């Protein structure tokens, strides 16, 4: 007599390359949660997955694209948005999603972020901000707060520099949809990613995440569970707040919500209009 064993699969498995499991992420890391948020957003919208392209750069979050079972590309450091622009402009039928980290998007790729936002090219950028370069072992980055410790901002002072506020940066660069959530606000975050994908324009969604292995350890923030609990405690939902008031103070207050949702002519649509006019 044989007994069939029913294997319970995660409902998002259909979008994920199972042959690439296990994930490379450390336990307690937020990137897996955000990968799930992106998959659920795709699922909720019922996107044609073949027409969806997932692009990422270098770093822990940069590995995200490789887990999605569609056309995916892993660029050099910082260039995910630049690559995505070329793909979207060359084939506007594609739904282009960039998932990458704060170092990739805002330091080495910062110039591409602000200019893609300025051009208003239709794509959705999901930036997981864990306040440091995790993959290289925990160095400070463009979002590391002042006087926080890292492998390259040691005691007694910690980080000499000051962080970017990515919501403010994206909003002032011209993004037409800007939101911020923490990794624990998975449903709200997913909804914003859905809105970002639906938006005809440049969408930027920052997800504040935990890196217990590096950043958490060096700043004594506890393990992954403790860090995520902390994110829940300090998250303050302020939908519709002007983006320049969307403060981020890791210890006390992380303002979350959707801050920008505006309409502006989108690059590929204007280009197609130009092509049409020239044909006449």
């Amino acid at each position: 007599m044989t007994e069939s064993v029913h294997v319970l699969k995660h409902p998002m498995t259909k979008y994920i390359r199972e042959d690439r499991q296990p994930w490379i992420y450390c336990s307690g890391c937020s990137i897996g949660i955000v990968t799930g948020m992106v998959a659920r957003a795709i699922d909720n919208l019922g996107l044609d997955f073949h027409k969806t392209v997932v692009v990422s750069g270098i770093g822990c979050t940069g590995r995200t694209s490789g887990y999605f079972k569609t056309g995916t590309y892993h660029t050099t450091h910082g260039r995910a948005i630049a690559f995505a622009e070329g793909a979207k402009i060359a084939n506007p039928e594609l739904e282009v999603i960039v998932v990458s980290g704060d170092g990739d998007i805002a330091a080495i790729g910062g110039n591409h972020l602000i200019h893609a936002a300025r051009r208003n090219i239709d794509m959705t950028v999901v930036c997981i901000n864990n306040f440091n370069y995790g993959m290289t072992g925990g160095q400070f980055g463009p979002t590391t707060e002042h006087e926080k410790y890292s492998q390259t901002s040691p005691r007694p002072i910690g980080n000499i520099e000051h962080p970017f506020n990515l919501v403010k940066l994206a909003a002032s660069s011209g993004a037409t949809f800007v939101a911020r959530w923490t990794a624990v606000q998975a449903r709200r975050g997913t909804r914003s990613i859905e809105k970002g994908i639906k938006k005809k324009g440049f969408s930027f969604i920052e997800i504040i995440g935990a890196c217990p292995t590096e950043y958490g350890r060096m700043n004594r923030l506890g393990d992954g569970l403790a860090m995520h609990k902390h994110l829940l405690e300090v998250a303050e939902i302020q939908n519709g707040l002007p983006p320049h008031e969307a403060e981020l103070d890791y210890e006390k207050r992380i303002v979350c919500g959707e801050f920008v949702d505006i309409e502006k002519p989108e690059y590929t649509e204007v280009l197609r209009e130009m092509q049409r006019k020239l044909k006449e």
Partner: protein
Amino acid sequence: MPKRIMFTMGDIACAEGALSAGCRYFGGYPITPATEIAEWMSQRMPELGGAYVQYEDEIASITSVIGASWTGVKAMTATSGPGVSLMLEAVGLAVMTETPLVLVNIMRGGPSTGQPTRGQQGDVMQAKWGSHGDYQIIALTPASVQEMFDQTVQAFNLSEKYRTPVFVLADETVGHMRERLVIPDKKKLKLEYRKQPTIDPSEYLPFKPDDDLVPPMALFGSKYQFYATGLTHDERGYPSDKEDVQIRLITRLNDKILKNADKIIDVERFMLDDAKIAVISYGTPSRSAKKAIRDAREQGIKVGMLRLKTVWPFPEEQVAELASEVDHIIVAEQNMGQVYYMVKAFAAPTPIHLMTKPAGMPQLPNEILDKIKEIKSI
């Protein structure tokens, strides 16, 4: 629509060549002396349903070209040395992910900002070795306005056929000079397109090569799913730090160019049949050499030229064969000696004489003639 026959610049011939080859995406950043290509493209691309996109820098420009290429659109960028310096990161990415693209370098004086409005051929080695790691590249060296058109078409064909970035390396003089350009009838142009997979998507291995060492390329938006990465990857496209995976991938990426070198390389043998002295040259200096050779022939000196229309992969066999035919070889290039070292590697023990010119004008015909006469008297 431009006319089929034009009196126009090398830069514009290059742009028209790209359009005739089917290029419908240009990502670029303005730079002298390649700006005319961008300007022409900004007008022509939208007319043809394509895109001219001006990026914030050269890094974004070429990376976007890679992105465009993965949608199946033929794509290019054009720049000069300072821009190439920035683009080399992405050249490596394109090599590693086997992305067809064309990179035009209208070479100006360097290093650094150098002489923006003056030509030089200082970027030959940069094209070959500029990005890190072991790889092969294809680089073509046109010497006239017509060749700017023809070899840009050829660059697209080679990039599609071998799934690799291809350089068009033209010096500023060729880029900016005006000559007659005849745009061939579209039906007469032989165009190559990358192979696409035909097997069942469940069996598709994105980096499994065919017998020609080139894997069929799936596109974004197709029924095939794939992961392309700059990391060393196996045939599935998955990253690997295993030694055998690295060896297999790097060997294949090199071999797909080197083992097809005879199909890629193009040279012109000019008055070489009875030559005792041979000039090796490319780009504008080869035109000085032609005049010098014609003048020398009038004086009864048996001299000819091997003109390189392809510098990478290097025409090793052609140079070795030449070395067995002649007593002396003169290498005339507009730099401090770059192709010279390659010639030395394959022409020994035939004596090789270098004529350098690290300045805005190529060697003058009479300078090359003097050198020919000097060597004749040895």
